[in-house]
């Protein structure tokens, strides 16, 4: 599989030979993390380590309320290029990309958060539902080649190498301890799996732009990372266990103190599954954006994004304005994704005919306050 994909990519690369002496390109680096419950301070402690104070936990509980808690992060570097020469006497031109990207998505029920970070004392006599808690991560390196037509409409074929991927999930689960501390029941059905090595795959990117001089607006549609990878060796730990007890007996058949001390630990309730190959979808993303000019130097943008393991679609709306001949800036409101409403701002500076720099800051408060629920930054260089 790996050899076949490499061969295919080399054939396409050879076909593109001769197109690279005249090209334009842009590079983007980005990073963001966001949660609807974990403040920057708590998130930082979870990443860097340290003592988590109970007040931080309580504040996260209050922020999460009764909803599913989410935390997501994404970061990466992307380089896109396109040839300035037409492809074989057509209007199309060769284009391509290289991307390094890492993505993580963690979700938890309020009960799981409470049990993990505060214990079960406040939950005595309550049935805690654990269903739906999940985490998954992945890191991909991608290289692509494709064609770009009029209005920068673009189609690319990606060769994808996934360096690591992991997926864990509690499909069903509950936990209950009686107020009198004389009854306990717990059930978990879930799994945690990971690829033992890198996996290869294919994906496509497509962009379609509606740009008309006669139309007072523009519309853009992008589909990214629509594809799959095949992990050559996938290991999965599965658990499906119910425990129900009023307390252990010291000895005797079934669950007892003696049998627990003689047991081999958690391995007795975990089933290990080793798959020769595992087919997996790459988290794709679809962006649709609409731009409407409010005047000769200002405009209104609306953008919607789905995919990228985001729990809910991400919606952005903003106002932009040109300042002078070289500057352009905008303010935005962002909703959805992994977090709540937050502001964003961006600025673009360009040197006509040469290059442009763009800086996008999501949730500017996140850069100065530990109380914010995330932050994001995108830096882009465009060779014009």
């Amino acid at each position, binding site marked *: 599989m790996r050899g076949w994909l490499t061969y295919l990519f080399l054939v396409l690369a050879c076909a593109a030979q001769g197109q690279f002496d005249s090209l334009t390109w842009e*590079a983007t*680096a980005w990073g963001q993390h966001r949660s609807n419950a974990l403040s920057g301070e708590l998130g930082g*402690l*979870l*990443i*860097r*380590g*340290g*003592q*988590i104070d*109970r007040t931080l*936990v309580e504040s996260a509980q209050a922020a999460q309320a009764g909803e599913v808690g989410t935390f997501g992060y994404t970061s990466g*570097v992307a380089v896109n290029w396109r040839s300035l020469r037409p492809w074989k006497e057509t209007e199309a031109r060769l284009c391509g990309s290289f991307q390094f990207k890492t993505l993580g998505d963690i979700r938890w029920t309020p009960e799981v958060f409470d049990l*993990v*970070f*505060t*214990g*079960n*004392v*406040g939950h*005595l006599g309550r049935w805690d539902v654990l269903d739906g808690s999940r985490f998954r991560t992945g890191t991909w390196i991608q290289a692509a080649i494709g064609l770009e037509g009029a209005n920068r409409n673009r189609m690319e074929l990606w060769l994808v190498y996934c360096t690591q991927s992991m997926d864990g999930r509690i499909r069903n689960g509950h936990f209950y*301890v*009686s107020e009198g*501390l*004389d*009854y*306990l029941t717990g059930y978990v059905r879930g799994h945690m799996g990971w690829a033992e090595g890198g996996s290869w795959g294919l994906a496509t990117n497509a962009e379609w732009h509606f740009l008309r001089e006669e139309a007072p607006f523009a519309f853009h549609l992008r589909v990214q990372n629509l594809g799959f990878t095949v992990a050559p060796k996938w290991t999965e730990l599965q658990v499906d266990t119910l425990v129900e*007890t*009023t*307390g*252990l*007996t*010291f000895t005797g058949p079934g669950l007892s*103190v003696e049998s627990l001390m003689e047991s081999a630990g958690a391995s007795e309730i975990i089933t290990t599954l080793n798959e020769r190959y595992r087919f997996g979808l790459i988290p794709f993303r679809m962006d649709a954006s609409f731009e409407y000019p409010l005047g000769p130097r200002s405009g209104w943008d609306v953008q919607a994004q789905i995919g990228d393991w985001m729990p809910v679609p991400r919606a952005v709306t903003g106002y932009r304005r040109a300042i002078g001949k070289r500057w352009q800036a905008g303010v935005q409101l962002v909703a959805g994704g992994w977090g709540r409403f937050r502001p964003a701002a961006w600025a673009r500076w360009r040197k006509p005919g040469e*290059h442009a720099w763009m800086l996008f800051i999501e949730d500017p408060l996140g850069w100065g306050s530990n109380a914010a629920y995330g932050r994001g930054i995108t830096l882009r*260089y465009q*060779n014009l």
Partner: protein
Amino acid sequence: MKRLNTCIRFQQGLFVLLLSAVAFGCKREPITWTVDVALPLVDDGWSWVDVIEVSSENGSIDVEEGAPAVLRFEGPVADWEIPSLTELPDTIVAQELTPDFTGGPFPVPPGTVLLDTEEDIVFEGIDQQFSGLVLSGGRIDYLVESSTNGYVELQYDFPSVTIGGEPVELKVVLPPSDGVAFQTESGTIDLAGAVIDLTGVSGNEINRIASQLVIGTPADITDTAQVYGTDSIRVKMNFQDMFVEQVGGYFGQETVAFDVDKTVFQPADFPSGFLQIEPTRAKLQFRNTIAADIRLQLDALSVDGIAVSHPALGIPQQIARADWSGGEVEPTVWEVDLLETAPSLFDLLGYLPEAVTASGEALLNPLGDVSGGQDFLDTRQPPQLYLDFEWPLEGAVEHFRVVRSLALEGTDLTGFTGELIVRITNGYPVHWNVTGTWDYEDPAIDPEVFSAEAAAFPMTEVTEVRIPIDEARLASPAILIIEAAMTSEGPVQFTGAERVRLQVAYDGTYQVSVQ
């Protein structure tokens, strides 16, 4: 060129960013937080059956529910061992072959037999007349030596010793000696499970194993041995550690002491108190499982040194041989009624004595060899003292104290603090006073003493004790001593359905640490 420079600068920046990320990632400390945990840990209980099963290893014991409940015990209380029948003395057999000439060398071609002899190996030091036996364990350590300048073959066959149906044999080929040192070979033959016919070569002897020893030069080695008159070939067989599983023959007239010292209540476990025991049946039986007559005379019976008389004491009892003719033992039983003792044996037992002692002696085959050498013993079914006992669970319990101790190893649980909640529900119609002492090995930690009181059933209130625990206490090895004292208000009747329930829960705080 400008684009190329931009590209290089970009790559350098990316490299610095990645390096920073790696360095940042390495400086991670453990994540710690505290959780409040409350969980049930133990829920166990003790009914009559649980309590009694612990004290009975071999017998059949049960409690029949009723008003009152009846406790029945039927089973062996002591085995009688006769060492002279169960372990054979070690026996060494040595053979030496020397030429009956001087000088030499004389050539001995391959395939020559130098010695071929059949003879009995006699087991010395056995007073009985055994005709056959099965060993549960034992071995032969052998040593073969040769000073001959040529290959020597030795074959020692024991046709009357079989293991798994195959006769035991030893075959050794020794290489030529250098004329200075002996060539030797040694080893061990395991005799576990060996069936041994002790009637010798003739088939009419006793305590003898038939054997055949052949010494010569191997036929399959083309080497002519050069033998001198001073050469010798020696073989030594050492029969060791032979333990008998079954033995037959005539066991002789041996007098064997019959002493039984049975521990009843260990003072460390039962320091004091009184338990009213009034059985309705208490038969003590001697079960003769040997196919040999026994004359048994019990001379004395005592409880912690207090002599107890019984009409059967001091009177020899002729107990006929057991019947093994069907392959299974039909023991012969002699029985005494323990309810006929004076003073009452069970009145004395009520005061929780440490030991009951019986002494006497037994004579095997008091009438001589009446079976014609057909005595038989299977050590897996030895003669036993057997008790058939029935006790209606009714009576008074006065300050009956039971002490149990439990050694606890230290457990490292950082940031652990809280309480063990111990709940006791008493279903017995006796009042309980429980005192616990958690004595730590670490002298810096004071012992934890707690006490609880449980009213007699039907007062069904739950007794609760809270024992503080923390990281330091759990880390120190300790001994937990529980002392329970029971008292009834006069005689009480047990129904057999009584139960004590013990529940332990934990309520406290634990500091989680994730590396």
